């Protein structure tokens, strides 16, 4: 029997057939690239270029704003025309650097050839430095700066690298296609990160609905000592960091602790591909593979998109917004965000997909009273009681919510997905996470005084 995580989980229809096995196509360059300063968790990057500066592909535009932060590089060549706010996908102003594109000149240090470079003579700390300087963040969705994960806090030691090739979000196929087309680069990326961490074991977790990727990665991994592929039973949210560690090595991250507690470091396949390019090819993170898909999209597929490309151009590339579209989602349907602005919102490290949902699939029936069926408890992969947390939030009982472990919630949406009464359970839980998080920070600040 195939492994999976032990508590909860749901089985949404995967809908991957629209874009599965579509070769990665390079999206055309935009006329103007708009590079967001905050494309990661942590402090926003600070601009180091001024209006009027000429930049090339790979030029550093903004340096990291702290340890938990990441630098941002130019994805195009041209001239910086302004540093100003751009409206993001939700219509909220976000600081960005605007570059008028001229040609496609790359920094000469970047190796653009397709030749595989297997060997790496760098010391672990130099590998990590290169990863940090290249602005690499977790491309699975959270965008947590990768170098931070590679430097465990004192007293903690990594034992195993877990590679996330799960792609459990419905519709998404970008990681799948990347494994098929760039498996060798990913394997080299794995070896680099293993060296950086000082571990001799890596496990690539891939869900069983991608048999070709499993087979391909298995044949590549068999040549590398210590690297193995684990075919996992299909279940959402297996791509969640904690669920994947559980599925691969059977250890569970304790409540409130970091994943390193289990000795595991998790990186997404796309992140490891970026690590390969950064360390072996000197190429900073300036583009990513995005799935652009939906039931009625004319040209669904997997596209290599330079950051800063406005959404409008991506929409045009796939044949425009399909008739009858009700909702456009940045990311997958379980955890992605609805967009109200599909014009200026620029592609960025966080945007793994654009998903067009037909209007008739967007509306939900009116919520009815909870019938206490306990399906939300059975679905919750963290072993929480969503019905109870949601009720406590309504009564603003934040202390009680903390006792019932609201901070363990990973926002996966399994409870809402499964609720037969269509109750918006996560609304209250998210509010509670905000309130309880603030309470915890206040307590910690008070304890320090």
């Amino acid at each position, binding site marked *: 029997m195939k492994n999976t995580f032990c*508590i909860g989980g749901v089985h949404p229809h995967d809908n991957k057939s629209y874009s599965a096995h579509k070769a990665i196509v390079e999206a055309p360059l935009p006329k103007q690239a708009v590079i967001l300063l905050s494309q990661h968790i942590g402090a926003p990057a600070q601009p180091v270029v001024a209006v009027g500066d000429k930049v090339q592909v790979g030029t550093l535009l903004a340096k990291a704003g702290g340890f938990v932060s990441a630098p941002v590089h130019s994805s195009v060549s041209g001239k910086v025309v302004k540093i100003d706010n751009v409206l993001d996908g939700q219509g909220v102003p976000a600081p960005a650097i605007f570059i008028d594109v001229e040609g496609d000149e790359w920094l000469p240090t970047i190796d653009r050839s397709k030749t595989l470079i297997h060997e790496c003579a760098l010391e672990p700390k130099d590998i990590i430095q290169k990863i940090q300087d290249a602005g690499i963040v977790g491309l699975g969705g959270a965008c947590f700066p990768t170098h931070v994960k590679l430097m465990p806090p004192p007293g903690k030691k990594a034992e195993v690298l877990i590679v996330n090739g799960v792609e459990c979000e419905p519709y998404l196929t970008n990681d799948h296609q990347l494994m098929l087309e760039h498996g060798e680069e990913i394997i080299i990326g794995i070896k680099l990160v293993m060296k950086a961490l000082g571990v001799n074991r890596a496990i690539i977790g891939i869900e069983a609905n991608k048999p070709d990727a499993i087979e391909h990665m298995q044949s590549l991994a068999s040549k590398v000592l210590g690297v193995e592929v684990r075919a996992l039973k299909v279940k959402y949210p297996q791509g969640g960091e904690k669920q994947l560690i559980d599925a691969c090595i059977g250890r*569970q991250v304790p409540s409130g*602790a970091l994943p390193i507690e289990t000795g595991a470091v998790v990186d997404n396949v796309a992140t490891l591909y970026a690590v390969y390019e950064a360390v072996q090819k000197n190429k900073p993170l300036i583009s990513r593979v995005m799935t652009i898909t939906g039931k009625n999209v004319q040209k669904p597929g997997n596209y290599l998109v330079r950051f800063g490309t406005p959404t409008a151009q991506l929409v045009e590339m796939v044949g425009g917004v399909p008739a009858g579209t009700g*909702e456009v989602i940045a990311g997958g349907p379980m955890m992605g965000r*609805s967009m109200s602005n599909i014009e200026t919102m620029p592609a960025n490290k966080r945007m793994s997909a654009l998903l067009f949902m037909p209007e008739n699939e967007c509306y939900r029936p009116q919520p009815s009273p909870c019938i206490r069926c306990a399906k939300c408890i059975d679905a919750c992969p963290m*072993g929480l*009681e969503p019905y109870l947390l949601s009720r406590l939030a309504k009564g603003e009982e934040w202390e009680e919510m903390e006792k019932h*472990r609201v901070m363990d919630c990973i926002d996966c949406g399994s409870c809402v997905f*499964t609720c037969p009464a269509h109750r918006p359970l996560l609304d209250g839980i998210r509010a509670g996470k905000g309130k309880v998080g603030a309470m915890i920070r206040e307590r910690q600040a008070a304890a320090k005084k």
Partner: protein
Amino acid sequence: MAQLLTSAAPHVHSGDTVQKNMLFVILALLPAFAVSIIAFGWSALITAAICIAACVLTEWCISKYMLGQQPSITDLSAVLTGLLLAMNLPSNLPWWMALIGCIFAIGVGKMAFGGIGQNLFNPALVGRVFLLISFPAAMTTWPVAKGFATSYLDAETGATPLYYLKHITKTGDVSFVDQLPAFKDAFLGMMGGSLGEVCALALIIGGIFLICTRVISWHIPVSIIATVALLAWIATPEGMGAHEFIAYQLCSGGLMLGAIFMATDYVTSPMTAWGKIIYGVAIGVVVMVIRLWGSYPEGMSFAILIMNAVVPLLDRIAPKRFGEVAKK
């Protein structure tokens, strides 16, 4: 282009509905209901029809005229309550008694608490126990299973296996063992009793269907049945085989109906795995205490209602949390 909709994630849904869950429970009851029609003929159909109609109508009237809500009878919960109550009644119960039971079940058992999801006690059992206390003679006069020959108005009546078992355990007089129906009949449904207690096999089929379709989990039925079996084994009277005694205890009375369909009612049962197991074991203990020492031959309704009251307490038992599972 048209304005885009925006909503919080997740943007897809399993498609499960309250109505679908209720419908599945109704479907799961159909085999047992079919057997009751075979056993008691038209009288079973009439009783069920009265109960379903009365429950739906009561809910509709109360929510529309007393609570001022949009009636939600399409969720099928009132249909299910009606059918379940009918399954708990003797088929020859006078129609007006059944009607009163239904009005009480929905009115007091469900709507007085605020409607679906709010009630503390199982509405069908509230109705049944109300009838049992109000009309004890009619509620304990069981028609003999004679198929379509059973008359609704003037049925031949007889005692149920539980009556004999009670007598045996109370007096130690095992001569009554001969009076018990053949075990095959008890299992397949050719014995006296209420509509839903005659065929253990059909009820078990329905239960397996509900567990396989994940409408209910195994915890409550299995823990009730296991507890009753264990206690029956311990309490087997002298002169009777343990297997025989256990089998009759499990297949007679409302045990299977209660364990599979009544105790698993979503609204009035605990929500976490251990809560369900404790609830099931406690029901098993209470029902055997009543059966062995109580004045009624059957105690399933009382056992479930007593444990309904403890559910808020059992809900304080947390589910298995992530990070607290023993390391492999």
